[in-house]
Every structure is written in structure tokens, then in C-alpha cells.
């Protein structure tokens, strides 16, 4: 084995680690039959080890580097996104542990890790073939996870719905990839732009590939009009899975969106900035306006998640280092925030047996800690300091102003106002309304407490101490331009 191969192997050590961990969990599930196996903790612990491994061995150099025959690109973007995915997976594993229907089946954790493996490759893929394979590797376990409660019709429906939508948009996106290959004669993402320009490909053909590809990416990030799956899947899927879908999987979608737009369409920037900007506006408005009417908190969070995708798309549309930095920072903030929100929904849902917003009446009397956690999460989603969402919004809106898209920033601001309303309504239910069971304490297991505290602390740290996260996001952004 020569030095170069060794280096390339080191670069994918984290991915190897994910597969090893997934395999280990499958084996453990088969041979270990104790009532409390703590598989969630094992997964979370393994994730921490993988984070350490990737920090120790898979650090990208100063200049981005193509490895494995141009299949992957070792750069800060892939590195930072991988950390985001791992954080999401570790926390989701903890939230899943308290949930007997998930925890009893060890393959749940293995599936999740395979999905994260795919995401990790998505974020560093530098070749269309690799990218497509990575997206499918990510998606297929997610379909199964969404339908994991096989005895619950809603969950199965969610799984099938997600599969059908995913399969369709994936096919459309693949068609876009083939057209790109046809026009450019290469599948290398970082050579396509040059080839397309040299080949004098007409604008409408490029626009067509752009729209086809956006269908696939738009599905992943749940942007309008590719969002139809989101509310039903979030509502039906196991709550920790919904949290995972809305944060980690969305982040993976943004990773490829950012990379492909910037790398493949640099000369059509005006075009895709406008298209992405329009997607952002419709996502924000539709998500927020429909969220206003929701009675079920998971559906509300689903629509809110569509709107949040809209805010992040503003950062993408800015097509600048600042905008991309903002989008990545936003994704980090959103990860901590939404995992906290879904975590609390998991906890409350298990005790109360309902995900209706009305079921949160009296929560502040029943469990002041959970109420405060929900307060932090919802206000962060609403963009109120000192929580993470505030800074994320500020940077993406700022980037829009910087890129001359003042109208887009204005749309974002208008939507922030609409959104604050429905977040506050939930808080009103939590703090003001009474319920018959409000004196009965609400049990929260240690595992859930740890996971919730990590999420809430993350929201506050990301919202007050910007420097380390901003620096990471900005390095990840710089590697794309």
C-alpha cells in the first residue's frame, strides 16, 4: 500500500467507522437479549468516537483535494457537514432509546448509521455517479425508518409516502444528471462547468438540467413545491425519526445543493439565484401560513420546517461566502433547535399519548423544565436572541442584503413575523392553559434528559458564542467557492 492510498483510506476513516458501528449494532442486536441494552448510548458513544477519528485523521488540508479517482473531495465542507450529521445521529439515538418500539429493534440504529454514512458521502461527493449513489444510500434507510412502526398504519403510510415521493424526485434528478453528462461529457462535478462552457450548451438546456436537479434536492430539503410528503411523514413517522429527517437529512440536502449550484452553474448564477430565491419565498410563505392552522404539533413543526428551509435557501440564493456561511450556521442552529423540539414532543407524546397542541396545556406547571426547553426551542425557531436561530437568520438576511437581494431579506423578515405568532401560541398553551393532569409529574428518563440538555445547551451556545461555529461554517463555505 503506497502513501497515497493510505492517505485516501485515512480520509474515509469516519465513513468506515460508521459502517463498522452499524455492523456492530446489528450483531449486538442478534446476540444480546438483556431487557435494557442501552443500544442508544452505544450508538451515541460510537458517534463520539467517529467524531474524534474524523478530527484526528480525516482533517482536510488547506487546499481541497480530489480523492478516490475524483469520486470524493476532501475539503472543509464535507468535514463540517459530517460533524453536523454525526451530531444529529448521536442525539437521535439517545431520543430513540427511550422509545421501546424503536429500541427493541437494534436495526433501527444500524439503519440510521447507514443513512448517515450516505449523507457523509453526499457532502463530499465530487462526481455525479457518487452523488447519486450517496443520495440513495441515504434515502433508502430513511424510508424504512419512517415506516418503522409496522403495526401503526400512520407510520407505514408515512414510510410508503416518503418512498414514493423520494423515488419519483430521485428519478427526475437522475434524468437531470444524465442530461448534464450528455452536455458536458463528464460526471466530474468540478469539471462540468468548464466543459459546459466549452461546449456552448444553450441556456435553456442548462436551465432544464437545473430544474430537474432542483426537484431532487428540493425534496431532500423539503422546499415548496417538493414538500408534500413532509407533513404526513412527520406526523406518521416515529417522532425521533421525524426529528432526524427534519434536521440531519435536510442538512445533507443543503450540502449537495450548495456544492452543485456553486460548482456546476457558476456562469448561470443569475438564473439559479433567482430560482432558488423564488423557492425560498414560496417555501417560507406556504410553510408559515399553513403552520398557522395546525392543531397537531408534529404537523406544525413539519410546516415550520418547510418555512425554515426557505430561510436557509435565502442564504443559498445569496451565492456568496457570507450567504453560504449563514446557511451552514443556520443548519447547525436548526439541528440543535429542532432536535430539542422533536425531543420534547417525543417525551410529552410518550406520557400524554397525544401530539395535539392542546395536550401541552399546563405543561409549565407539570414539568417546568420541559416547558423551558420548549420555550428555548420555539423561540430559537422564531429567531429570538439569545438563541441560535437569531444569529442564523441575521446572517442569511444580511447576506441577501449584501448580494443586492433586499427584496428577499424583506420577505424573510415578513415571514419571521408570521412565524413568531404560531410559536407563541404554543407557548401560550404551555404557560397559560390549565389541564386536569397538571399536578401529575411527567417522567423524563435520564437518557432523554441528557439529550435534551445537550440540545438546549447547544441552542444557547450557538446563539451566544459565535466564534468557533462561525469559523467552521465559514471555512466550509470558503471551500465551495
Amino acid at each position, binding site marked *: 500500500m503506497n502513501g497515497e492510498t493510505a492517505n485516501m483510506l485515512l480520509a474515509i476513516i469516519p465513513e468506515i467507522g460508521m459502517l463498522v458501528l452499524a455492523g456492530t449494532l446489528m450483531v449486538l442486536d442478534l446476540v444480546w437479549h438483556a431487557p435494557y441494552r442501552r443500544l442508544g448510548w452505544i450508538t451515541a458513544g460510537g458517534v463520539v468516537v467517529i467524531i474524534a477519528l474524523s478530527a484526528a485523521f480525516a482533517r482536510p488540508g488547506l487546499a481541497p483535494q480530489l480523492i478516490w479517482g475524483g469520486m470524493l473531495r476532501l475539503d472543509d465542507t464535507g468535514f463540517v457537514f459530517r460533524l453536523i450529521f454525526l451530531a444529529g445521529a448521536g442525539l437521535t439515538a439517545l431520543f430513540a432509546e427511550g422509545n421501546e418500539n424503536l429500541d427493541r429493534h437494534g436495526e433501527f440504529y444500524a439503519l440510521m448509521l447507514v443513512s448517515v454514512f450516505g449523507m457523509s458521502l453526499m457532502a463530499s461527493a465530487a462526481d455525479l455517479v457518487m452523488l447519486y449513489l450517496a443520495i440513495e444510500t441515504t434515502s433508502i434507510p430513511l424510508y424504512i425508518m419512517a415506516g418503522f412502526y409496522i403495526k401503526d398504519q400512520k407510520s407505514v403510510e408515512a414510510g410508503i409516502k416518503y418512498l414514493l415521493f423520494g423515488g419519483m424526485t430521485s428519478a427526475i434528478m437522475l434524468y437531470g444528471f444524465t442530461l448534464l453528462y450528455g452536455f458536458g461529457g463528464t460526471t466530474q462535478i468540478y469539471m462540468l462547468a468548464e466543459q459546459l462552457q466549452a461546449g456552448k450548451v444553450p441556456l435553456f438546456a442548462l436551465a432544464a438540467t437545473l430544474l430537474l436537479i432542483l426537484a431532487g434536492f428540493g425534496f431532500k430539503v423539503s422546499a415548496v413545491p417538493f414538500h408534500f410528503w413532509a407533513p404526513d411523514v412527520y406526523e406518521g413517522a416515529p417522532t425521533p425519526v421525524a426529528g432526524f429527517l427534519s434536521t440531519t437529512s435536510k442538512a445533507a440536502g443543503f450540502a449537495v445543493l450548495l456544492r452543485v449550484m456553486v460548482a456546476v452553474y457558476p456562469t448561470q448564477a443569475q438564473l439559479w439565484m433567482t430560482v432558488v430565491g423564488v423557492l425560498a419565498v414560496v417555501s417560507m410563505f406556504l410553510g408559515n401560513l399553513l403552520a398557522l392552522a395546525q392543531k397537531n404539533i408534529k404537523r406544525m413543526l413539519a410546516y415550520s420546517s418547510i418555512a425554515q428551509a426557505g430561510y436557509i435557501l435565502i442564504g443559498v440564493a445569496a451565492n456568496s461566502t457570507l450567504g453560504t456561511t449563514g446557511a451552514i450556521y443556520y443548519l447547525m442552529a436548526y439541528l440543535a433547535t429542532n432536535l430539542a423540539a422533536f425531543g420534547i414532543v417525543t417525551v410529552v407524546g410518550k406520557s400524554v399519548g397525544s401530539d395535539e397542541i392542546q395536550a401541552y396545556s399546563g405543561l409549565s406547571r407539570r414539568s*417546568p423544565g420541559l416547558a423551558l426547553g420548549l420555550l428555548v426551542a420555539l423561540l430559537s425557531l422564531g429567531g429570538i*436572541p439569545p438563541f441560535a436561530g437569531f444569529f442564523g437568520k441575521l446572517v442569511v438576511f444580511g447576506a441577501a*442584503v449584501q448580494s443586492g437581494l433586499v427584496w428577499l431579506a424583506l420577505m424573510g423578515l415578513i415571514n419571521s*413575523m408570521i412565524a*413568531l405568532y404560531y410559536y407563541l401560541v404554543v407557548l*401560550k398553551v404551555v404557560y397559560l392553559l390549565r389541564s386536569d393532569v397538571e399536578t401529575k409529574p411527567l417522567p423524563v428518563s435520564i437518557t432523554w434528559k441528557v439529550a435534551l440538555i445537550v440540545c438546549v445547551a447547544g441552542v444557547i451556545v450557538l446563539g451566544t458564542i*459565535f466564534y468557533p461555529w*462561525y469559523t467552521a461554517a*465559514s471555512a466550509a463555505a470558503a471551500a465551495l467557492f
Partner: protein
Amino acid sequence: MQFPILSVIIFIPLVAGLAILLMPAGRRDWIRETALGAASLTLLLSFIVYVGYDVQSGGYQFTEMVPWLPALGISYHMGVDGISVPLVLLGGIVVFCGVLISWRVEDRPREFFAFLLFLGTSVLGVFCSLDLFQLFFFFELAVFPKYLMIVTWGYPKTREYGSMKLTLYLFVGSMVALLGVLAIYFGSAARTFDLLELEKAGFPLAFQRMWFPLVFFGFAVLGGIFPFHSWAPDGHVAAPTAISMLLAGVEMKVGAFAALRVAIMLLPGGAHAWAPLVLALGVVNVVYGALIALVQTDFKYVIGFSSVSHMGLVLIGFATLNKEGLLGSGIQMFSHGVMTALFFAVVGMVYDRAHTRDIPKLGGLFSKMPWAGVGFIVGGLVSMGMPGFSGFIAEFPIFMGAWQVSPWVAIIAITGVLITAAYILLVLRRVFFGELPAEYLRIEDVSVQDKVAIALLVVIMIGIGLFPSLISPMVQSGVNHVLSLLGGA
């Protein structure tokens, strides 16, 4: 390195609030004693800053600066000038009195006192900010304590409506201001949020004229500017007493202060262009607010609209852009803050005992609660601008300044003061004098904590009225700096 007194002032309430959240819910004694301890310490330190501020040298003092996010030109930059020092003291006073007044809160006191202290951190943070990002950060920090405190502990009939109206109104204002803030940031060559740097940025006149209204009106919504004032009476009435005191007493000043600090001081050319409109709206605030107050039958709404009216005077003072007007505004922010805190405290005391705020049903309460009655009388005299009280020291320069711009403005605004005298005297007679209704024969006098709060607020208003030199030179030193910026445009 000197002792970071401003940071300590700001973070004491925050840390105490967090500590309170960790306490067992049943220990109301621990909770409120911690809150009172923190509020006393904040008050003491803000008093030390007030005394320690060197009026002769002026400028920004007690400055602290730590890079926060250098990549974006954000720093943690604290400092106070002659305009903000009294406001910091005001914040300390009102938080302290707010804790005293809320001594008997029974429903979830832990959350109540913690959120109250968080609100204190927010307002004090704005007054001390010398970085635009930081200012906005603290400004927005107030959103959730305000909303939750009104909706949870507010007046049951209107709290849901009042809290949501207030929060969304103010959030819209701050989002509009944010757009202006971003424009200022990207318009500055230095790409910094530092206010001292931005003061020197010298934005092109067209830029200033374009963005001034967004920033000014965005922030001034919280200052209660007409026609965006209607959140104020509804919100104040719906809020629990301590929050009404903080909202009308301090938060409205936060709005006016931010409008001054960001819009007028950074965009002086825009201020000159838009001053006539602000002046006109300020006059409407004064007269219209007073007229509406005159016809209210709800005790608390009278005070709510009187705040709108008095904040109009602050806006008039700003819009004169001259020495007298700005000086008056600076003092008025302090004087009105103390006065309205006292008014709302008295209203709260009356309501807690009589269980109604309907003025026709009240009467003769002076004999039952003389402390509250005296407090209301002093507040009323301040409100009417009577010489010997702080209101006179504040309002007289504002009218002088307004006269220089246009005598008519001064004359119309002064009619507002006459109407104020009318509604204050009417309310005073109907609530505190006349015949005591039979059902109130057994009500108790106010508590010791209430008396301390009343006494403190009354002493301040009379003290400043008798010795204007306690505050005037200080505000003057801050105004001089504003004038130098305005002159340079």
C-alpha cells in the same frame, strides 16, 4: 483592566434569574429574596455608575470591549454616556421597585421573578451597548419575557389579546429596524457594527434619507410613536403590575433611546430631513394621547394613554434636533420612567385591593391607602409639569426647543399638558377622594414593600425637581455629543 461594572450590572439579573430557575418551585422565600438581592445590587451598582460618571470629561465612559465575532465586525462593546447613564439608573430603580411590588405573586413565582430579571438584563443591555449588533441582541432579548409574563400573569380578560398584540407590533417594528441596521452595516466601508466607528462613517446623504425612516420608526414603535402606539395601552393594561411598570417605565425608553442612538446619531442627515414628520407625529402623540386618556373609565387605561402622551414629548424633543429639545428629552425619559412606574404601581395596588379598575366604582381610597394616594398626587404633579418636580425640569426645555423650531408646535403641545392636568385631577378626585363605597370599608393599607417602592420613586421625582443639577449637566454632556454629530451633517 478596570472593574467591568456595566457587564456586572447587566449580568447580575441574568445570573440571578437562572439561579432562580434552578431553585425548588415551592421555596417562594428563597426565590423572591434572591430576586430582591439581585435587584438591589443592580440598583446599587447603577447608582455607583451614576455618581462615578465624570460629567466634566463627558463622552463614553466605563467602556469595555471584547471581540465577539471579528469576522463580521461584531464586538462586545459596553459604555455609557450622559444620556444613557440616567437610563441605566432608571432600569435599576424600576426593576428594584418591580420586584418589591410583586412580592405577593403566588402563581409560579419562580418563573415570574426569573423572567422579570431577564427583562431587566435586556433593557440594561440596550442602554449600555456601543455595538449595533449587541444593541439589537439585547433589544430582542425582551421578546419572550414580555410575552410570557403578560400572557401568564396578566389581566385575565385581555391578556391573550394584549400580549400577542404587543409582541407582534414590537416584533414588526424591530424587524423593520433590522433591515435598516443591515443596510447601515453593509453601507459602511468598515463593515463593522461598532457604533463609535459607525458614527464616523459619513454615509452619503441619499443613503441616510432612505434608511432613516426604517430605523427610526422601527425602533420608535417601542417608543409608542403615533400611529403605531396602540400596542402600548392594550399591552400595559393586560400586563401584571411589575411588567406594566417596566414596559411603560423602561421599555418605551429603550425604543426611544435606540431610535436616538441608531437612527439620529448614525444618520444625522436623515434626521434633518425627517424631523418635521417626527415633530408632527410627536405633537399628535401628546394631544391625542391626552385626549383619549381623558375619556377612559378604566384607571389603568388612563395611565396607559398618558404614557403615549408623555412619550410624545420625548419625540418632540428629539425632532427639534436642538440643544434644549434634546436635553429635555433626555431628562423626560428618566422622569417619565420613574413617574409612570409609580402610576402603574399605584394602579396595581388599588386593583389588588378593590378588585376593579372601573373609575366610577372607586372613590375615597385616600383614607384607606394614604401612601398610594400621596404617590399618585406626586406622580400627577410630575405629569402636569409642575415646578418643583422632575416633570418640569424635563418638559420646560422641550417646549423651549420646540418654540425655536415653531412656536405653534410648542403651543399645541402645551395644550396637551393642560389636558393632562384635567385627566389627572379628575382621576385623583374620583379614585382617592369623594365618598368611599361601602364595600371598600375593610380594605387594607398597602404593604411595607409597596411603601418602600413608593417612597423611593417619590423621593427621586422631588429630588430632581428641587435640584435639577443632579441630572441636567449629565444629560447635557451626552447631548453635546449628539449635537456635534448633527452639526456635522
